[in-house]
């Protein structure tokens, strides 16, 4: 029963959503070059299924790689800012300023610096757009650690590294995973920005672009759905990791 609810309810909501979409297109009598309907999608997927697999894989690995770099760099930055007030004062304005820049404006800049390095540029953008929430959450998690938590180990002569490993790191994990869930979706935006804008790009973004060029609207919508699907998969992968590493933070339902 519990399982049925957990899987059935989200599935039902998706079916209802698709039904409303189909209905909207049908009621308005829109042709598929104005708005594709869900029933246009399976043929589009079938027609290009090899492309979807190949491009989807391209988008996925770049996003995941960018995200992994963002996790390492974001955690590192967060640690520096969490432990040192001076570093925090120095880095926060820079980070906030950088984060405020619309990343679409960076695409041509990056494309000019690293001409033709499509894989590299895509991964770089996924990283640039997604490290900020991680850095901020880790730094806040560390800087708000109550002094008693540090003292129980410090009083025994434990090193800073030990205190970080045994107390600060696990205590920050729930915040970290909260930020990672935001970063997952951001990283997809980064990957696709580059894939769409770059000429001769690869990945789902490029497939979207080719759909636009050829006036194949069902293909464009199919790409959007494929992206949503990948986003959901990656998001729930993070949720699964969170359950393993920070499941203790979840209070049993009263």
């Amino acid at each position, binding site marked *: 029963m519990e399982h049925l609810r957990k899987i059935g309810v989200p599935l039902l909501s998706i079916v209802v959503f698709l039904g409303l979409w189909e209905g909207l297109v049908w009621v308005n009598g829109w042709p598929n070059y104005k708005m594709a309907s869900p029933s246009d999608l399976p043929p589009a997927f079938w027609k290009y299924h090899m492309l979807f697999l190949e491009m989807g894989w391209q988008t996925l690995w770049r996003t995941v790689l960018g995200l992994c770099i963002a996790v390492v760099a974001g955690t590192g930055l967060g640690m520096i800012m969490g432990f040192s007030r001076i570093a925090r004062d120095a880095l926060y304005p820079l980070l906030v300023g950088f984060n405020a820049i619309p990343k679409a404006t960076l695409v041509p800049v990056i494309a000019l610096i690293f001409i033709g390095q499509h894989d590299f540029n895509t991964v770089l953008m996924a990283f640039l757009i997604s490290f900020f929430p991680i850095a901020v959450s880790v730094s806040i998690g560390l800087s708000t650690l109550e002094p008693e*938590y540090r*003292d*129980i180990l410090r009083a025994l002569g434990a090193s800073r590294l030990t205190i970080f490993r045994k107390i600060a790191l696990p205590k920050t994990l729930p915040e970290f995973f909260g930020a990672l869930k935001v970063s997952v979706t951001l990283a997809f935006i980064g990957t696709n920005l580059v894939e769409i804008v770059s000429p001769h790009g690869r990945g789902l973004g490029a497939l979207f672009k080719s759909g636009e060029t050829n006036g194949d609207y069902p293909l464009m919508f199919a790409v959007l759905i494929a992206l949503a699907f990948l986003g959901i998969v990656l998001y729930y992968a993070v949720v699964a990791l969170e359950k393993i590493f920070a499941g203790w933070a979840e209070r049993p339902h009263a």
Partner: protein
Amino acid sequence: MEHLIEIKGVSHAYTTKSGPLPVLDGLEIAVPEGEFCAVVGPSGCGKSTLTRLIAGLMRPDRGEVWLHGARVTSPRKTVGMAFQNPVMLEWRTILENVILPLEIVAPKMPRAERVARAEHLLEMVGLKGFEGKRPSELSGGMRQRASLCRAIVHKPDVLIMDEPFGALDAFTREDLWQTMRDLRAAEPFTCVLITHDLREAVFLGDQVVVLSGRPARTQRVIDVDLPADRTLDILFEPRAQDMLHALRDEIRIAQGRVPAAPAH
């Protein structure tokens, strides 16, 4: 007599925006080995600073802190600490929380030995059967019991407690006093207890040190000549009542409510 803890002329001040804020001023405390020293004083008189100094987490501006005939300049493995907040690590079970200090102090101790030691202590404080629970599943009093176990699991010579029972209700607090008394009977250690509760100080202490208001000096030391195996009833006996009255008067003086009696 050999004093395990000696605090000699310790003064300390914090730097604040409005200049230095002196909290301790020429403090003198001496605790013989195995004795229980309760420290009472008005709010904000620097009692918590005192615990951090003894633990070696801070160094005083002036004066010296000695443990076991050696001057304290940094943290030592032979100290245990407990705070008002039980500071349970939510991601560990109760058993793993109690084991934590052993991971630092005795990294080579076999796992089975650690578990046995922790289980033994948990049983003594009445937490048998709760070893595998998460801290969030326990009541405040139970978490504080686990916190006490963790503070002494590595057999420290000195246990430093900063108002450990302050956040508990009156009956739970009295239960924990008795737990503390039993632990001391089973596991000898020297103890410094910071508290606001005069009855707690008299029930648990071998000596009660009264600190003056900020900056704190040693205002008075009262020896508690009650038997070691005291029960709560002893608090209603005249000799305990006399002590409580004397302490009450000292606190009033420390708070500055009545002028100190002229020296005679």
